[in-house]
């Protein structure tokens, strides 16, 4: 088997798809602004209401689509590479659920109203807490099944606590909030959300991109990788904290968006010849493209209903698992 298709070509293709979808996302929305008017309003700032719609509503939404999709794809690839398991993803370890819990607590205790960074910081704290808890439950060098079970435990616990917080809230909208956190949405996000989450997302990316070579070496197992000059504790810290940072911040803005971190790296892996280091940038671009596409779809399929992002990503995820089962059965036969 050759080393996948040409790597630069793959990255260029994914990058192009991301750019195109970014532009389409800018042009999608209930206000029927024409193509040229949209671009003029976006770039020049003239055009009154149209400019506001483009710059304050559509632009942040598209930017967040890229930031969040890339974070999910990147961290999914990093986790799969580090755990040496193609079914790993940030949600598996309870990171998204715990980040949601942190965000909900920040909102409901009023901290986020008092101090705007409180929201992404508490989501981050939730994410790191999840990781530490999973590590504690599963132990060092755990079997995959133990790790997964620990992740399920953390997810369930965080989900229960989130539901409890919302159930006890005196605010009548609380019950609907669960839907947002469980299914994710980018509706009506503003540039404020972009600026708040950007530092954490960039920090997460900076940490994750450093481990590419180490993940390649981990193909040979931990012992060999350690003797090839990599400090495995440092790799683990970078993977864990990097994931917690960018996924925590992403969740605080958009709620829990599932499946992208699992499906995108899994699908792109054959195209990069299996190499974890190459998979990470490809997965980041792929994740950005998929999330943008899903966010465009929610606005196009049922514009008058508040279709949630997570519904669409789940519609990608479910058939993916079916395909996996068929593939495994075929290989085993």
């Amino acid at each position, binding site marked *: 088997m*050759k*080393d996948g298709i040409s790597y630069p070509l793959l990255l260029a293709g994914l990058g192009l798809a991301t750019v195109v979808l970014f532009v389409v996302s800018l042009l999608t929305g209930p206000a029927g602004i024409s193509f040229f008017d949209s671009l003029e309003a976006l770039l020049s700032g003239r055009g009154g209401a149209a400019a506001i719609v483009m710059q304050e509503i559509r632009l942040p939404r598209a930017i967040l689509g890229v930031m969040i999709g890339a974070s999910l794809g990147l961290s999914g690839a990093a986790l799969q590479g580090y755990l*040496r398991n193609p079914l790993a993803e940030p949600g598996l370890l309870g990171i998204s659920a715990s980040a949601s819990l942190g965000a909900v607590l920040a909102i409901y205790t009023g901290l986020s109203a008092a101090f705007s960074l409180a929201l992404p910081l508490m989501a981050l704290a939730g994410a790191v807490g999840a990781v530490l808890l999973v590590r504690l439950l599963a132990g060092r060098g755990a079997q995959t099944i133990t790790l997964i079970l620990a992740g399920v435990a953390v997810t369930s616990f965080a989900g229960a606590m989130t539901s409890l917080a919302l159930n006890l809230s005196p605010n009548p909208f609380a019950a609907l909030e669960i839907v947002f956190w469980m299914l994710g949405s980018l509706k009506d996000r503003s540039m404020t959300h972009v600026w708040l989450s950007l530092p954490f997302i960039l920090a997460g990316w900076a940490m994750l991109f450093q481990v590419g070579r180490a993940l390649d070496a981990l193909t040979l197992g931990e*012992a060999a990788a*350690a003797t*090839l000059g990599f400090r495995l504790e440092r790799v683990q810290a970078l993977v864990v904290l990097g994931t917690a940072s960018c996924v925590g911040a992403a969740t605080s803005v958009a709620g829990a968006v599932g499946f992208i971190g699992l499906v995108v790296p899994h699908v792109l892996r054959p195209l990069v*010849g*299996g*190499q974890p280091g190459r998979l990470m940038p490809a997965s980041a671009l792929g994740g950005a493209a998929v999330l943008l596409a899903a966010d465009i779809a929610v606005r196009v399929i049922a514009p008058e209903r508040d279709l949630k992002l997570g519904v669409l990503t789940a519609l990608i995820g479910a058939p993916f698992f079916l395909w996996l089962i068929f593939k495994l059965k075929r290989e085993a036969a």
Partner: protein
Amino acid sequence: MSCALSVRSLNVRLGRRDVLRDVSFDMQPGEFVGLLGPNGAGKSTLLKAIMGLVAGSGNVSRVGRRLADMTPRQRGRELAYLPQEREVAWPVSVHTLIELGRSPHRNGLGPPREQDRLAVEAAISAMDLGNLRDRSALELSGGERARVLIARALAQETPVLLTDEPAAGLDPAHQIALMSTFRNLASEGRSVLASLHELTLAGQWCDRVILIADGSIVAEGPPDAVLTPSNLATVYGVRAQISVTSDGLSVVPTGLV
């Protein structure tokens, strides 16, 4: 005296068991040393302890420098290690896998350089993998995979190579080719320490043999001095037919003691 590898008073305790007790030995440049002993004697642990993969007390140094004082990358350029478990997690190509051996030499970013390319090619031809270079590592047979992983260690181009049961699962021809490769490395001035179960291979190819039992060195020296009937009976619990042939020492276990 610049020893290629100097091990002093290595003690390793795992759980409540003393797995290695006060192990000390030297290796010179250009030596091919066989590490022998029954299952559970501590051979794997010894190799891991030298590489710093298990915690132990004692001192390991190379040409006068303590390994503990080096950074992991520096260690990676001095010693290559082949674990017993032949793990490959992803369907990467054989070429990519071998190239991983260049990791300690490559800086963070940047494509492989000429010396990396040459090292990989040398390793591929040394292990006779030319026709497999583009195959997925997960599609190989057990023996092919073993050779690929050895090639990785060769590509690392280190003065010292430690390998844990490298001949296991190889057919006779490839076993001999492997021993021949190690011999060639030794004649280039490198040092090879290989743990082996194949007594005849050790007898025929190793300059020196270290026999370990129960965590301690029982005997050390040229193969014919160590692989004696009494040692074989005490350490392995077997009777063997030992003969000297034109190819070297031949040790064939014939029955239990």
